[in-house]
């Protein structure tokens, strides 16, 4: 259950039996495909979720960078983000396990909406815990969850954001473990969650690796993905982790042999407004856990964290709500320590600029999370080789209001003039 020194099961004793039961179910259904679980999962991912998602050649960006840029279009998945891969897998697993109720936490609301959709699809009652601050600022996602029939339970403790919601969901689970499954939204939490969520998300890189070989004749030189908790990141990396040869291999393989070589894996974190923390206030104006955090225990796992010198968890910050988390998946922490994954970060400004660039140049409006990956591409494409796959983890419809507000605070040449919205009538977005 560990990734080097990371991972483990740091949870209240009351949850341990549930986690052990889940680990057992994970082993049987996911790893062994018992009762055809994985077959059904993949079939539902296709028919309900819309898989496979395309690997699209990005013409304008490729020309701009003189590098072949491919977009792995998870934004086209049902719900608008990679989140459904995991939510559908876990809700289906809960059904196989005989559970009768689904709970989940959500921050920006993406995981909550994905879970609510999956639960509706599989006819499971579903309750989502969401901090009241997040409820107020992510109303469309609250609407979506409610419209899919899920209960949304406001969490009023503390700042009322993601980490409080996670704690609250764990508390619910501690009371209801016998009939309830807790759908954790990323590759975090106690074992088996980090491995299991990775396995559900690995379909991203399974497809991308095959598609890249099909389209380019070889492996990409680099895969770039944004990293918050890290589920899209590990999903995009998983099948490339073992492509760890000494040399890059974008050299094509016309012979049809299985391509080999090294694929660089770049995890782009939210640099926020600064990498400097305010110890006094316990605030990190970023979410660059892999780049700047240090080891600790949070939400059931040992991993890298943003914490103060006492070990109290810091408030993280990012223009992107979905990256705004003080922890990170233990597997990513391990792969970074091993040197297999390169952690980098991109600040709010560069992410916003990249958001506009992708929208205007490629006609794909990315999630602000995703935009961080493109911010890195803009600044560092020279180091990424000849063929780069960027994971478009989600679409940006949810971020429109934030983007407009944040853009208006900055002087970004690339940003479109939004004054039409002031010239014409009122009404909320």
């Amino acid at each position: 259950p560990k990734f080097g020194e990371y991972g483990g099961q740091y949870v209240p004793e009351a949850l341990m039996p549930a986690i052990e039961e889940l680990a057992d179910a994970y082993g049987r259904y996911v790893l062994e495909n018992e009762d055809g679980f994985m077959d059904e999962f993949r079939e539902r991912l296709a028919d309900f979720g819309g898989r496979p998602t395309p690997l699209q050649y990005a013409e304008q960006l490729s020309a701009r960078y003189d590098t072949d840029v491919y977009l792995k279009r998870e934004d086209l998945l049902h719900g608008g983000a990679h989140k459904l891969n995991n939510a559908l897998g876990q809700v289906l697993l809960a059904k196989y396990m005989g559970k009768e109720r689904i709970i989940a936490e959500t921050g920006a609301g993406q995981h909550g909406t994905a879970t609510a959709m999956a639960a509706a699809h599989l006819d499971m009652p579903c309750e989502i815990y969401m901090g009241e601050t997040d409820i107020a600022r992510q109303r469309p996602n609250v609407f979506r969850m409610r419209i899919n029939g899920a209960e949304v339970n406001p969490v009023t403790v503390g700042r009322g954001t993601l980490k409080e919601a996670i704690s609250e969901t764990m508390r619910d689970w501690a009371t209801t473990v016998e009939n309830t499954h807790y759908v954790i939204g990323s590759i975090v939490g106690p074992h088996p969650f980090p491995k299991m969520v990775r396995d559900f998300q690995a379909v991203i890189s399974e497809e991308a690796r095959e598609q890249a070989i099909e389209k380019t004749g070889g492996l990409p030189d680099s895969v770039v993905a944004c990293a918050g908790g890290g589920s899209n990141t590990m999903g995009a990396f998983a099948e490339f982790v073992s492509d760890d040869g000494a040399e890059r291999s974008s050299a094509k393989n016309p012979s049809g042999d299985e391509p080999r070589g090294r694929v660089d894996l770049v995890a782009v974190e939210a640099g926020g407004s600064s990498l400097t923390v305010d110890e006094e206030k316990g605030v990190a104006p970023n979410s660059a856990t892999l780049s700047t955090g240090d080891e600790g225990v949070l939400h059931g796992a040992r991993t890298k964290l943003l914490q103060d010198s006492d070990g109290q968890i810091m408030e993280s910050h990012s223009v992107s709500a979905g990256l705004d988390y003080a922890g990170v998946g233990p597997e990513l922490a391990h792969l970074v320590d091993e040197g297999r994954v390169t952690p980098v970060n991109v600040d709010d400004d560069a992410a916003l600029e990249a958001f506009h660039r992708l929208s205007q140049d490629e006609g794909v409006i990315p999630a602000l999370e995703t935009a961080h990956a493109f911010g890195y591409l803009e600044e560092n494409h020279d180091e990424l080789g000849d063929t780069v796959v960027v994971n478009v983890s989600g679409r940006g419809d949810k971020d429109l209001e934030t983007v407009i507000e944040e853009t208006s605070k900055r002087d970004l040449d690339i940003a479109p003039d939004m004054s039409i919205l002031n010239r014409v009538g009122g009404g909320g977005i």
Partner: protein
Amino acid sequence: MGLERAFADEPAFVPYLAAGDPNYEDSLAYVEALAEGGADVIELGLPFSEPIAEGKTIQDAIVRSLESGMTPDRFFEFVEDLDVDVPLVCMTYYNLIYQYGDSESRSDSGTASGDTASQEGPRPFVEKAAEVGIEGFVVPDLPAEEAGPLREACDEFGLDLVFIVAPTTRGDRLERMMEQVSGYVYVQARLGVTGARDDVDDATEASLARLSDWDVPKAVGFGIKTGEHAEEIVAAGADGVIVGSALVDIVAEGHEDGDSTEAVADRLESLARELKQGAVRGAQERPQPERT
């Protein structure tokens, strides 16, 4: 390894308060009131920012304590400042224990024990705790499987490590815990998180039965709020009762209502006395005490 002694003569009353709730000075008075009221062991909470095992009552206490400036170092001062003659147990989350020795920026804080120590794991924290007189730990997010390093440090410095047994804990997990536990075992009376409730769960007897061959005292917690509850629990075979939320409620109400420190302390002492007496009555009702 001395916490067992608190259970030796009669059933133990083990209250919990979050250190520094609602502030340092009042909290000292409140903890001392519990000792006055008959506490045999006191569980002192060192607040962590992500208390995943607590119900709302204790969560709120933790927020109040953090906001009043509680830190690990301040916690150790708190313990030193306490004027009580009762064994003290530190209840906190593992990250605080784990990080204490790992910080390079502790130099400016009051104590120096952890200075520039790095990658030492729980040892510096345990060392410091022992130094100020803490006799044991309860760490709600540290199951037996992950407890090796802490157990080792506790052994080195002669501290107890209390584990929580849940109603759902069975088989191998019980074995693993039994190997590591010392001082007493915290028997969780029902599923869920901490919080005072109005009834005593039937699961308690079943839990006690599963632990009958353990050679540490069995203290039952979760949901005990009156002397009668305590009585029933002990009558059912517990060696002690752990009470948190009912006491924290008194602190919270006093804080909200702006009551004097003395008034709140009196109430705490009074409830403590009731609980201790209930526990004692319960022991008398047992046909055949089975404590080791």
